[in-house]
């Protein structure tokens, strides 16, 4: 095992243009092993495109991205699929697969093993509170239920028996359809995985969630990542007002410097 770096993802001078329109411009940041990083910013600021670049779905026009010290382009799709899973913003499935079948699909990159796959799927069904939907047709579920099934699927993809060191999860608005209970459950779940070494980068809309549950925060505005750093350094009313063009106040809720937005 290489031990020299704690770095899992390095983004250097990345820009993305399509049809002469710039969507991401001059983006630089690093993510360390086992960190939870949230990206926030107004609509159309380029958050989803940044996640797609990190996921290798699209290739940067300029600059480069390194995952585990190797250029993202040099990975074989099969090779990377066991180390990194991605939850896109919304997925549409037109055929009536069951909840079990969808979660099971997360095991596709791994050699088939009926017994261990079943254990993993059963475990994730419990974790994401999906017991009532076993065998149910996916297309008949509500938005939040679908989101929990898709979350279970991406966790099945990077499932590990011991440590999640070196594994990366990329989530685009993972809580957008969840009710408050399942939102909080979700943050508890990712925190457990983080404690086992998992690294997570996600786009969130709720600034309170981002500031409460992430180690680092990136703020995007008009194609650029204008602030990136430790949560307590970045979250302040001046930065937020700058990024979102609004006037909001923060209130301190504890002595650790944790802040809550006051609307």
């Amino acid at each position, binding site marked *: 095992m290489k031990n020299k770096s704690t770095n899992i993802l390095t983004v250097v001078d990345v820009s993305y243009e399509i049809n002469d329109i710039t969507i991401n411009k001059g983006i630089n940041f690093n993510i360390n092993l086992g960190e939870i990083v949230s990206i926030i910013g107004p609509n159309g600021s380029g958050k989803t495109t940044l996640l797609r670049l990190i996921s290798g779905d699209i290739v940067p026009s300029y600059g480069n991205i390194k995952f585990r010290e190797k250029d993202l382009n040099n990975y074989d799709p*099969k090779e*990377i699929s066991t180390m990194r899973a*991605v939850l896109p913003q919304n997925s549409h499935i037109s*055929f*009536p*697969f*069951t909840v079990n079948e969808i979660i099971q699909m997360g095991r*596709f990159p791994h050699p088939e093993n009926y017994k261990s796959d079943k254990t993993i799927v059963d475990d994730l069904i419990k974790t994401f509170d999906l017991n009532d939907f076993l065998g149910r047709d996916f297309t*008949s579920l509500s938005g939040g239920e679908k989101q929990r099934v898709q979350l279970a699927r991406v966790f099945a*993809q990077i499932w590990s028996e011991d440590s999640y060191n070196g594994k990366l999860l990329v989530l685009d608005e993972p809580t957008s359809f969840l009710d408050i209970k399942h939102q909080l459950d979700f943050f508890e779940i990712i925190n457990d995985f983080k404690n086992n070494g998992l690294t997570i980068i996600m786009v969130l809309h709720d600034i309170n969630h981002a500031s409460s549950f992430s180690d680092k925060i990136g703020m995007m505005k008009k194609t650029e990542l204008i602030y990136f750093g430790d949560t307590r350094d970045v979250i302040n009313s001046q930065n937020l007002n700058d990024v979102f063009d609004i006037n909001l106040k923060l209130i301190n809720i504890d002595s650790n410097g944790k802040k809550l937005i006051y609307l």
Partner: protein
Amino acid sequence: MNKKYEKNTIIFLIGLFLLAIISLVSTTIGPVKISILQIIDILFESININTNLSSSEISQAFKTVVIDIRLPRILMGIIVGIALGISGAILQGLFRNPLIDPGFIGVSSGAAIGAMFVIMFSQLIAIENNFYIQFLLPVFAMSGGLSTTILVYKMSQMSGKTNIMAMLLSGIAVNAFSGSIIGFLVYRASDMELRSFTFWTLGSLDNSNWLIVSIAIVAILIPIIISINLRKKLDIFMLGDAEAGYLGLNIEKLKKRIIFISALMVGVTVAFCGMIGFIGLVTPHLVRLIMGPSHKTLIFGSAILGAIILILADFISRIIIAPAQLPIGIITSALGAPFFLWLIVSQKQKIRYEK
């Protein structure tokens, strides 16, 4: 392995059993009545086993009718049913749309141009020998079908990726353009040519003989094996292009394979048997209703059910106005079209349910 697996195996076995029974019964029908027992005797005799279940002397004429006329016809029906069923299943998977018919990739309309060309051209240069027409027509139909499919595929390429929506639209456009070419040829055609062409478009298993059956088996064997191997990948593909890519699936390779193996399978059936509609559309749907949407059961199930439906349609086409026979395409469309309407109505309700 588990209960679901056992249940699926039983359904497959029932399907294969039904196919065998229907094929046998269908073999008895025709101007000469031959009993099932006599047919079994003849079949076993042809592989040098003496069964004599019918306990009667079977004439050489009966043997010729069964071995050289009815058997190749039934086998051709099974092959065509398998090819149409599988290509319908994998193309509906490719478009992630249960309302897709193999005609959407342009193969049938291209084949029709090829066929019409041969029908008119052979009259023009006075090819009297039926053999040439029998040989040239499949070759031209096949080339026409593959060319239009390649055209549709090329049109859907956008910066190195296959755009499914663009493919659907270019398929419709290419079909419309082919329609105008066919229209022009039909306008210029003589009554005789028109009649041959019309019969060709209605589909038929009449030309089946052992040579054609052998060619068809060789041509569709590899596509069948490839399709069955794609079953797990096609399930993953249902999650969406990006999602499947994140799971390590090479989606461009998958799309290319599906298009070309289904073009090959449909091309072979159209070349030898003309246009037989609705089987590719309806069969996968019925299998999904019985066994669920997973391609692990869908591809194999569509192969068996496609063959059953085709043999049944052929059976009906031979008895409904006996001693004459109706073109098989009329039967499949007459049964398929009402089913398609039902599909649209039930799908409409489902879309509302899905919100």
